[in-house]
């Protein structure tokens, strides 16, 4: 058995110094061994990031206080170590990479110099040797054209390149422990796949112990040797990857795994002959950047997008960031004006209508946004928010408020929610409120723009169920924008795959997601983390109609 690199024993971290302060971390114990990856998995607020920051000594000083327990790095106690000793240990023995590589790098310093700082702080090497070592490390993390990137600023690099720089910076002094805090969450799936492979390979070559923090079970299945599930500041369950995925012993873990949508598309519904409610043809949106000198720059955010949606059906638009899927949604709802093409809503052309002419048609199409914390006006009660639409279309206030109460019931919220303010609700509840608000106008089409992406997986499952239920009851048509193929597989009848503003492939979800015809779609499916595992059924995906078997 290899050596224990990180040994956390009964760690307690409280919010503030007082004896009765809330415990953010409540008795966490875990070990990470040399050459091993421990995935610390949990939903938001579970305390997984606080645990890792406490190990590094980077928690908010004064606000988060480790009050008892121990955290030892190769036998050396970290919680009582002096600031100076912690500084010496960082980057040399333990290193950390973060979620958002854009903000984690200093925007005004070339990336090469940022790596160089590590060497200057911890070694006595001369400038030439340092540069050689950095360039070698940059090649090691598979960055192209390292001499150019060495001098580049973070904003000149792609998200994946930035995260590679972060990894190079973290590993240049070959630390014993690497803490990776959601390192791929901000990246597209294809990039995520490469970064995960890189971390795996580097770990194998150097025997680094990796504490990998994530909320994504797919990522866990890809990278973990062992798994620790966290909730409310405690470890719920811990064990080897296979044991936890196949036979979770705790109820919470079971629920968490069952909530992960399967990549295998749900059983297709019969072809529909219902009327078409939404139709776009050759829809395009071009952004022009005016400039005094030189030519105006044009960026086609969406081009030639043609799609149809029938009553009672769900159409998904899937793609990575920058694919133009949100642009299409916003053009359809006319939050932005399309440059070319047509949008027909229940047979009526709306793409060219002026604001006033559009007014009577707005209520036929409604939208639900991604961020539940920003999509409700914090100063307006839930009831007033839901009633706003109907009141705009002439429904008397009392009636609109009464209807708001019924809608709250429809989205499974208590009736007394009507007079409360948004901040009194959780993210999932707010998303339900936003759905109720959209439904208040009895729209024919409901657009969900990444509407479940910001939610924890268990909440996400509930909101997805809600969409299904609403569709069954109201016969509404859903246009579902998502980057998550798992979500698309579970909710969509048809999917449109977009890349660089264009439609790459479209068709029935069951066909596109199991037997993709285009290379890009294949690549996307191939990059979906944990695609070989059927989490909800605690077993690998069978090879018969399976996705990974392509």
């Amino acid at each position, binding site marked *: 058995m290899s050596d224990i690199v990180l040994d956390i024993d009964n760690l307690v971290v409280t919010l503030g110094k007082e004896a009765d302060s809330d415990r953010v971390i409540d008795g966490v114990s875990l070990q990470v061994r040399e050459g091993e990856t421990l995935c610390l998995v949990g939903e938001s607020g579970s305390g997984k990031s606080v645990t890792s920051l406490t190990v590094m000594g980077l928690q908010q000083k004064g606000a988060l206080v480790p009050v008892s327990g121990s955290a030892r790095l190769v036998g050396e106690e970290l919680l009582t170590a002096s600031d100076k000793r912690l500084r010496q240990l960082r980057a040399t023995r333990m290193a950390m990479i973060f*979620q958002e590589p854009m903000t984690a790098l200093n925007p005004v310093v070339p990336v090469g110099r940022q790596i160089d700082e590590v060497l200057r702080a911890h070694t006595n090497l001369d400038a030439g040797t340092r540069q050689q070592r950095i360039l070698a490390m940059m090649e090691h993390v598979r960055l192209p054209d390292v001499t150019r990137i060495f001098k580049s600023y973070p904003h000149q690099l792609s998200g994946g390149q930035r995260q590679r720089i972060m990894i190079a910076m973290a590993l240049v002094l070959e630390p014993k422990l690497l803490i990776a805090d959601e390192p791929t969450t901000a990246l597209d799936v294809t990039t995520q796949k490469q970064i995960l492979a890189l971390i795996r390979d580097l770990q194998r070559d150097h025997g680094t112990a990796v504490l990998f923090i994530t909320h994504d079970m797919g990522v866990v299945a890809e990278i973990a040797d062992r798994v620790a599930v966290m909730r409310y500041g405690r470890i719920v369950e811990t064990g080897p990857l296979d044991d936890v995925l196949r036979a979770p012993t705790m109820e919470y873990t079971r629920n968490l795994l069952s909530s992960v949508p399967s990549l295998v598309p749900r059983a297709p519904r019969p072809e529909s002959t219902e009327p078409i409610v939404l139709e776009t043809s050759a829809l395009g949106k071009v952004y022009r950047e005016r400039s005094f000198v030189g030519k105006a720059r044009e960026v086609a955010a969406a081009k030639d997008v043609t799609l149809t949606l029938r009553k009672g059906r769900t159409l998904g638009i899937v793609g990575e960031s920058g694919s133009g899927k949100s642009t299409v949604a916003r053009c359809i709802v006319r939050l932005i004006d399309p440059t070319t093409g047509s949008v027909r809503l229940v047979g009526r052309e709306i793409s060219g209508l002026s604001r006033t002419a559009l007014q009577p048609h707005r209520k036929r199409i409604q939208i639900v*946004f991604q961020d539940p914390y920003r999509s409700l006006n914090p100063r307006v009660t839930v009831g007033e928010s839901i009633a706003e639409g109907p009141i*705009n279309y002439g429904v008397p206030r009392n009636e609109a408020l009464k209807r708001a109460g019924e809608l709250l019931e429809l989205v499974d919220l208590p009736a007394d929610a009507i007079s409360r303010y948004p901040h009194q609700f959780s993210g999932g509840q707010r998303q339900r409120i936003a759905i109720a608000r959209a439904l208040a106008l009895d729209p024919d089409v409901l657009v969900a723009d990444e509407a479940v992406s910001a939610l924890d997986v268990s909440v996400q499952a509930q909101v997805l169920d809600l969409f299904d239920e609403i569709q069954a009851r109201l016969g509404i048509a859903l246009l579902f924008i998502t980057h998550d193929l798992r979500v698309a597989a579970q909710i969509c009848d048809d999917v449109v795959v977009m890349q660089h503003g264009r439609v790459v492939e479209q068709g029935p979800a069951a066909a596109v997601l199991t037997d993709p015809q285009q290379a890009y779609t294949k690549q996307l499916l191939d990059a979906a983390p944990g695609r070989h595992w059927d989490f909800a059924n605690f077993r690998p995906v069978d090879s018969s109609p399976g996705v990974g078997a392509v």
Partner: protein
Amino acid sequence: MAVETLPEPSTRVTPTSRSGFGFLTSGPIITTATICLTIIVVLAIIAPWIVPHDPMLLKPAQRLKPASAEFLLGTDAYGRDVLSRILYGGRISLLIGLGSAIISIVVGLVIGLVSGFFKWVDAVMMRIMDGLMAIPAILLAIAVVSLSGASLLTVMIAITIPEIPRVARLVRSVVLSAREEPYVEAAISLGSSLPKIMWRHLMPNTIAPLIVQGTYVCAAAILTEAILSFLGAGISPEIPTWGNIMAEGRTYFQIKPSLIFWPGLMLSIAILSVNLIGDAARDALDPRLKRREGRK
């Protein structure tokens, strides 16, 4: 960000954070400032009933008397009672402070709201605001006053003009960032009219920053009025204002420095109190503003 300290970031903008003026007594310094300002305001209001002498009455025989039982702070070069003039002086200062704050906020709010919503208005308005901001406030004010004659109203307007661009830009920036909020986009797709969106979803965001900015404008206006009077370009010299008393005191500074120090002290305390209250209001009403803005 992946740092999860609290389960829910539910304290974004809570309705409770807008209610009440409890912040006025939230600490020893701010409580002192509130008390000082209250005393100055009360003294200014009741000045006509409590002053020991007529502040305008010239008594050449009593020129430059030192402090005595009859004249607690002595007399000025025309034999007028300094204490009475200082008590009266607060009236003009506070009136101008309050008036300028109100005018600049009303005008700035309108300009800012409209600019935040209409691109063409914005392009024109912001150039005008840039131009006004390029002119040093004191120069602009003394030029306006000297040309249009020094009355209370013209002085107030002269002081307000340079403050308007700051308020307008503040409102505009709040509107522009609030416009991007999904709840405003939701209101658009719910078919809410433009005035309704402005009134219900955009305006409330400007209230807290405007209260804060209003106190700063008030402090700046009191200061500018004093400077105008001090330079001889303000309200007519025989009317008692803190700036006027000091302007007259300049000539006799080496003989009788108290002619400058007493009104200077009152002036400084008044401005300091208003500024401190502004800071406390900012901390209490809008935690997001706390760190972002230095002052203007």
